[in-house]
Each structure stands twice: as C-alpha cells, then as structure tokens.
C-alpha cells in the first residue's frame, strides 16, 4: 500500500486534485470515528456519577428504582462462562481440523460454508433455536444453562474462524521439523504448532467473550428475567443479565425516567466489561504483530 512511493511527479494541478479527492474521501470515515468517540464520551460522562462500590455489590431494591446491579453482573458472567465452556473445545477442535486435516473436497467445503453461514445468522434466530432445543426439547427450562448453550452455539463460528486462522498462520516448517524426527501428526501439532498458535486463539476467544457479554436477543426467551430476589444458585436457575437489565430499565420499567441514571450505570458497566476484554485481545494481537514475523 505504498502508493505515494510509486506515484509519478504529476503537474501541480493534478497533484492538488488527487490530494483533494482523498481528503473528500476521508470525511465519511472521520464522521464515523467521531460519532464512535462521542458515543463513548457520552456514555462515560453519564454513567460515571452512578458508579460506586455499592452499585456494583448490591441487588436492585425498591422496585428496581434503587440499589445496585450485582445479580446482573453475576448472571452475565455465568452465562458467558457456560457459553465458552461449550464453544472453546468444539471451536478449537474444529479450527484444528480445518487447518491441519481437512482435505480439499466436498465435505470440507460443506463444513466451511456451514460455519460461515452460522456466523451470519441473526442472534434472535439463535434465540428461537435455543427455545426449541434447550428450553423445550432438552427440558432445561428457562435457565442459565439454556441461555449459556444458546450463546455458545452463537459464538462457536467466531471461535472456529479465529482458531483456524491462527493455526494456519504457523509455517509448515514447524510441523515438518517434528515429523522428520518421527513424531505422529498429532504430536507435531500438539508440541510444534498449538503452543505458537495459542496467543492468536486466545485473542479470538477474548473477542468472542466480549461480544457474547453484550448479546441480548439469544437470552431473551431462554432464561433471563426481569428481577430475581436471590443470586442464581444452580445452573437451572433463571438469572438477571446486564444487557437485558438495560433493555428492561429503558423500555419495560413503569418509571423509565426515574431509573434512567441506573440505566446509564448499567450501560457503562457492560461497556467497561466489553472494552476490557477487547483491549486485552488487541494488546495480544499488537504484540504478536511485533514479535513474530509469521503471525499476523
């Protein structure tokens, strides 16, 4: 992308037109980035005054007009955890298969195409599937388990594609070195590929984690609830969650304006969780890009 290096020295008028063109082209991008920055500043400015230790460690009280959001934080962490317990082993296994074993045939193309299609399916459709499969057919009811598994199905394709990418990025000489010493294919992968692909896979998992925390539609009918008195005590309990709490406070609560500050606080806590995991993921990726020539 080193166009300026190669660009000929055009007459001044043409050079000016060229630069002016690119400046015009930059305007939409600048507007988009400015809105994102404004969005963050707005949410931080309105959410910060609400945040304090009590807000994070107490349940809602007095018809959710006072108190904190502890059950929502706990619920969100629990469902996200369940979803990853499901999707990490399957996702990484599938990633290993696609990058190391898959032959170039119809079956592989079908698998790849299915996974890409899964990534494009709307989250509300996962919610419907979760109702039909986990809540009803498997009799899990409205529960953390049903919601977590629904979320797990949703983030599975994200984890598969980043796992495959980071394993494929390891040069084949790493495998060949081990194979030449008489290891089996699995031993070569286990000792000479996976350790080097690990940071890349971790990045993918963290990004999936961040996105999963913010998802609302898949949990809407599979176990999330408006209010519970106690913290969940079993995988089959209903639960409160940050994104749904924000939704409920702004659209379902009969005193929506009175609870607006709590809504801002909830939005900010959710955002901080999401950004924190995103930031770690990107930090790892940046380090990788600097450290290893073979890894992108």
């Amino acid at each position, binding site marked *: 992308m080193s*166009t300026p290096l190669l660009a000929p020295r055009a007459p001044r008028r043409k050079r000016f037109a060229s630069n002016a063109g690119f400046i015009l082209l930059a305007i939409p991008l600048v507007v988009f980035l400015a809105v*994102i920055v404004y969005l963050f500043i707005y949410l931080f400015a309105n959410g910060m005054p609400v945040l304090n230790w009590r807000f994070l460690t107490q349940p809602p009280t007095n018809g959710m007009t006072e108190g904190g959001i502890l059950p929502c934080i706990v619920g969100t962490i629990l469902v996200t955890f369940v979803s990853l317990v499901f999707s990490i082993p399957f996702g990484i296994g599938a990633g290993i298969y696609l990058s190391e074993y898959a032959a170039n045939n119809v079956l592989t193309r079908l698998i790849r195409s299915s996974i890409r299609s899964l990534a*494009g*399916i709307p989250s509300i459709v996962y919610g419907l*599937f979760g109702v039909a499969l986990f809540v009803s057919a498997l009799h899990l009811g409205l529960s953390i388990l049903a919601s977590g598994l629904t979320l797990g199905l949703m983030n599975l394709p994200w984890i598969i594609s980043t796992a495959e990418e980071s394993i494929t990025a390891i040069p084949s000489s790493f495998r060949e070195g081990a194979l030449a010493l008489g290891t089996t*294919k699995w*031993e070569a992968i286990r000792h000479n590929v996976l350790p080097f692909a690990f940071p890349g896979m971790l990045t993918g998992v963290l990004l999936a984690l961040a996105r999963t925390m913010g998802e609302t539609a898949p949990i809407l009918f599979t176990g999330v609830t408006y209010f519970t008195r106690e913290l969940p005590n079993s995988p089959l309990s209903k639960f409160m969650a940050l994104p749904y709490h924000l939704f409920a406070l702004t659209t379902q609560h009969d005193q929506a304006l009175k609870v607006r500050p709590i*809504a801002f606080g909830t939005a900010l806590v959710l955002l901080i969780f999401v950004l924190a995991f995103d930031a770690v993921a990107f930090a790892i990726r940046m380090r990788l890009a600097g450290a290893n020539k073979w890894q992108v």
Partner: protein
Amino acid sequence: MTIRTARDRAARWTFFVAALLGVIVLLGILVFLFVYGVKMFREVPVFRFLFGMVWNPDAYGQSQFGLIPLLWGSFLTTLIALLIAVPFGIASALFIAERLKGRVRVVVKTLVELFAGFPSVVLGFFGLVVLAPFISHLFHVSSGLNLLNVSLLLAFMSLPTIISVSDDALRVVPHSYREAAFALGATPWTTALRIILPAAKSGILAACMLGFGRAVGETMAVLMVAGNAPIMTKSLFEPVRTITSTIAIELGESAFGSSHFYSLFALGAVLFLITLATNLIAETLIKRERRSFML
C-alpha cells in the same frame, strides 16, 4: 508405537467430529425452525401467511398472521440504512486501503473492528435517549421513535462490516494494477477511483450484502427505537415493525404451542432463509474476486 498411532487417530476423529458440529448445528436450526414453523399452517393457510397484509395475532377469534407488513418493515429499514452506510463504507474503506499505513492504519482498523462488537442494546439505548429527542426536535415530530431513527442506527451498525470486508477486497487487488496505472501517468486518486475500485467491485458488493445481512437481523437496537406499530410504514417519521422485533416482542406473550407461538418460528425461518441466501451470495462474490486475480 501402537499407542501413539492410536492417539493420533483418536485426535483426528475428535477434531473431525468438532468440525462436523458446524454442519449439524446449521441443519438443526433449519429443521427446528421449519418443524415448528410449519405447525402454524394447521390453523392458518400458507397463502394467508405469505401474502397477508395484516399482522394482528391478538385479535380474538380472528387473528391475522400476514407476513407482508413485517417483511416491508425489515426491508425498508435495511434499505434506508444501506443508502447511508454503503457510500460511507466504501469511501472509508477506499481511504483506509489506499492512504493509511503503519500505526495509523492499525489504530483506525482496530476502532472499526472494536465497534463491530459493540453491544447493540447499548446502541439502542443511545438511540432512545439521544437520537430520538434530537430527531423529534429537529423535524418537529411528536416522537423520535420511527423509521429514520432505526435506519440511522442500522447504518451505523452495518458500517464496520462494510468497511472491513471492502478493505479486504481492495487490498487483494494486485500491486501491478497500481504500477500499470502510474506508468500511464494516472494520479493516485484516479488510480484508486478508476482502477482499484472497479477491480474490487465484486468483493465490495459482497461487503454490501454482508452489511445487509447484519442490518436485517439486528434485533435489540431496532426493538428499542422503532415504535413497533405493525403498519405499512410510508414515511420516515412513522413507527415501523420488523421481523426481528416482532419475534422479540411476541415470543414472551404467546402461549407455548399456539398458532401464534409457531408463527414466530415461521418468521424466524423466513429471516434464516434471507440471511442464508445473503451469505451464500456474498461468499460467491468474494471467491469470484479472488479468482479474477488468480489468487
């Protein structure tokens, strides 16, 4: 040695089964949506669902399950969103691909990618508390919860997809294309606009398709700012009801096993088919671009 080869084989099969899960889940979603969806047709004729002009499942004794107003709402919101997002997205991608490099490029791409994972419910909240009053004030309308608000949010949400995929499409255009244009005396601007952009057109079209899929499937942000009246919306300032928000609103209030309940799965099946088709077309377009450069 036998244990090692046995282990090797076991590993291979385990990973194969994990990969096969992708196909199984996709088929599972398809089967469940259709098996549940079809059950609504025991009471409602297929014709009345596919071509019905009224969605009113609550009318006692004469519920109507017409798909058309919801399909209209979904397509209208998405189309207006894309009218904004496509030019914005392509311009941004062209600028990123042709002008940004090194650290700046990494930072900008990171911000865009970060925003792709932004919780849609927070964006909906923003639409509700900031955009809605702004719209109602600016255009002197009583409520800012309308088609315009939804479309703006959806444009915003599909931009990261359009930018990222378009940028990828622009970056696979071989460098020899640029060199050839420069050799003929073209400026970088002319090269970008007349050579690189046309060369990447099928990849960029794929980006737009994926942006469409992203917008048509969005639920929470739409639900919070759409006003949600199931009418044939004709103005930017009227409320609108999409397929996704209908499922989200009504699944909780419909009785398990009723025609109403199953009709929401039929809506899900329609949505599933729309996004599946969108994705397959996008995939074909991306392959076509890569093949045209013999990659």
